[in-house]
């Protein structure tokens, strides 16, 4: 009834994963500013309310409850972190407010019984898809013997390793050594030693940036000269943080920095805010714009929003062509971009889809 539409943005603004959350929030904000500047959604302005989950499950549930019960948001642009999404998922069953996020662990969207949580959506390729992309790419490019090191205390890391290993073994590759660590570990040398000794072609490292840096540094210190295959977390600014040449490090990204409209956006953001936008920015931007489209067609009725979200097809976003699968609430066949580094400069290799 009001003049504005409340939209929640539930992100880790503080806490260890805040760089992701802040970047996503900046993207959403950018989109909302654009939308409002262009006259809003059917004349109504979007009022973005940012909630800090502090990377803490309890905080997240509190923030979520506040958003849906007291601030009456029409939809939430959701958390980028699997654990947070997992915590909110059961809670979200009690109402109809949609959570449009980018948690790639399929458990965030799909209940143990195989049906989707009615309000949980993911707008980037699932963990299985991403892992498959990386595995297939690696195999195609001549790697055959792999080591894997992942953080068993981190849902994101865990969700990527299994599909990677499955894909590799199913397609004739060999996983010579798998080691796990916990979030408390900081010294990986002892863990990495067996991988280095196993003389692998490449090591799969599906970890957060900070751990990635430590692992990369320490594995190099141990004399390993092969490749590292990383997920989204080796995207820039990894190269600037790493402090050394990043040759031999492969990663995937949602965006392709060589594309014209992506470049234009990067430049505009840099000019206006001084931020070097990363993939999370673009994810946030795309989701906010998808939401705008939904509001424009079905209004803010939550059930309508859900149905419309399930129907998103071929939305041409900066992160690719998004088509949501109503059975999983995750995108179908979304492409990702494979990268590597030369020195510290990212080099795009090719676009790639899991199918």
């Amino acid at each position, binding site marked *: 009834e009001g003049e504005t539409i409340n939209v929640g943005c539930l992100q880790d603004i503080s806490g260890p*994963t805040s760089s992701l959350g802040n970047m996503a929030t900046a993207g959403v904000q950018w989109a909302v500013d654009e939308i409002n500047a262009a006259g809003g959604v059917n004349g109504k302005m979007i009022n973005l309310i940012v909630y800090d989950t502090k990377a803490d499950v309890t905080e997240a549930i509190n923030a979520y409850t506040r958003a849906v019960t007291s601030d009456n948001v029409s939809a939430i642009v959701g958390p980028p972190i699997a654990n947070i999404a997992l915590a909110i998922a059961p809670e979200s069953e009690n109402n109809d407010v949609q959570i449009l996020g980018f948690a790639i662990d399929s458990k965030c969207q799909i209940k143990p019984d195989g049906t989707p949580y009615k309000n949980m959506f993911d707008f980037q390729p699932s963990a299985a898809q991403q892992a498959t992309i990386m595995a297939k790419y690696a195999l195609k490019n001549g790697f055959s013997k792999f080591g894997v090191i992942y953080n068993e205390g981190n849902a994101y890391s865990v969700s990527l390793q299994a599909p990677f290993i499955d894909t590799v073994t199913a397609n004739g590759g060999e996983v010579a050594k798998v080691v796990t660590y916990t979030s408390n570990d900081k010294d990986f040398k002892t863990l990495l030693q067996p991988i280095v000794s196993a003389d692998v072609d490449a090591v799969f490292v599906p970890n957060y940036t900070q751990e990635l*840096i430590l692992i990369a540094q320490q594995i190099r210190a141990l004399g390993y000269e092969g490749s590292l295959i990383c997920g989204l977390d080796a995207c820039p600014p990894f190269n600037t*943080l790493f402090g050394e040449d990043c040759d031999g490090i492969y990663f995937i990204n949602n965006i392709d920095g060589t594309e014209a409209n992506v470049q234009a956006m990067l430049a505009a953001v840099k000019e206006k805010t001084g931020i070097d936008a990363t993939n999370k920015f673009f994810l946030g931007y795309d989701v906010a714009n998808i939401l705008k489209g939904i509001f424009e067609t079905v209004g803010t009725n939550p059930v309508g929003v859900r149905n419309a979200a399930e129907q998103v097809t071929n939305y041409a976003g900066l992160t690719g062509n998004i088509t949501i699968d109503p059975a999983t609430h995750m995108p179908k066949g979304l492409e990702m971009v494979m990268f590597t580094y030369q020195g510290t400069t990212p080099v795009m290799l090719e676009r790639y889809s899991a199918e």
Partner: protein
Amino acid sequence: MQILQYVINGIALGSVYALISTGFSLIFNVLKFSNFSHGALMTFSAFTGYFVAAANGWGLVPTILAAAATGSLVALAGEFVAFRRILIRNTSPIYFFVSSITLGTLFEGIVVLQVGANFYNYPRFFGKPLKLAGLVISQSDIIIFCISAFVLVVLALVIQKTRLGRALRSVSFDRDTASLMGIDVTRSIQFAFIISGALAGLAGVFLGINYTLYPTLGSLVVKGFIASVIGGLGSLPGAVIGAMLLGIVETTLISTIGSGYAPVFTFLIMLVFLLVRPRGIAGSNIQEKA
């Protein structure tokens, strides 16, 4: 060879733990409480070292000096806001527990406020690791080992042999009576905090070099706690021995059963240890006299 490498890794890890646990033990020794703000203090000073020196392209030594100086100053300030009045009042240990944890939260909060939750990476201070007969030893590990050995020896000498050290020890038993001996109790305690703060700064920088800098870096202090339990609470040599032992045990566990169960086994070892030798390795056991 492999085993030797693990021992080397263990000692390297142990040296870092030793730097943490000596600073922690010093305060425990003097004031008989576990200073849970020690970790956050490490973070705070490591970040200051980073921004004051390292980020300006200055080398290792200025970074360490900046961090140690910050550590001392902040520890001093912490003593004033969190511990001074409790010490004067001579109250129960719970106050120290609460005070120190809260102080830690405060330090961490300030760090987050200033730098956000991002992590930072010190510039490379050291060259490539040394390779010796198939063994790999990183230069930072060697330096850390030397520094913690040096610090311990100096500290032990000061505490055991000097007038100041004796004053500190007497303060640790009975502050009122120590003041009746002409000892400025507040000064002595400040001195302990200054030293412990400097150690925190030093540990912080080396942790940062090894493990990157981030606001919760200080939670590694837990390892220091465990080390000092193994070594004997409050005993400085014990803190170092315990740290080395913990380092070696951890690397051994990691290389045999993997990292996942390592904390479980570390805990079990600690438990057994306490059953068999409750006072720790170097802890003295004065039988209480009625």
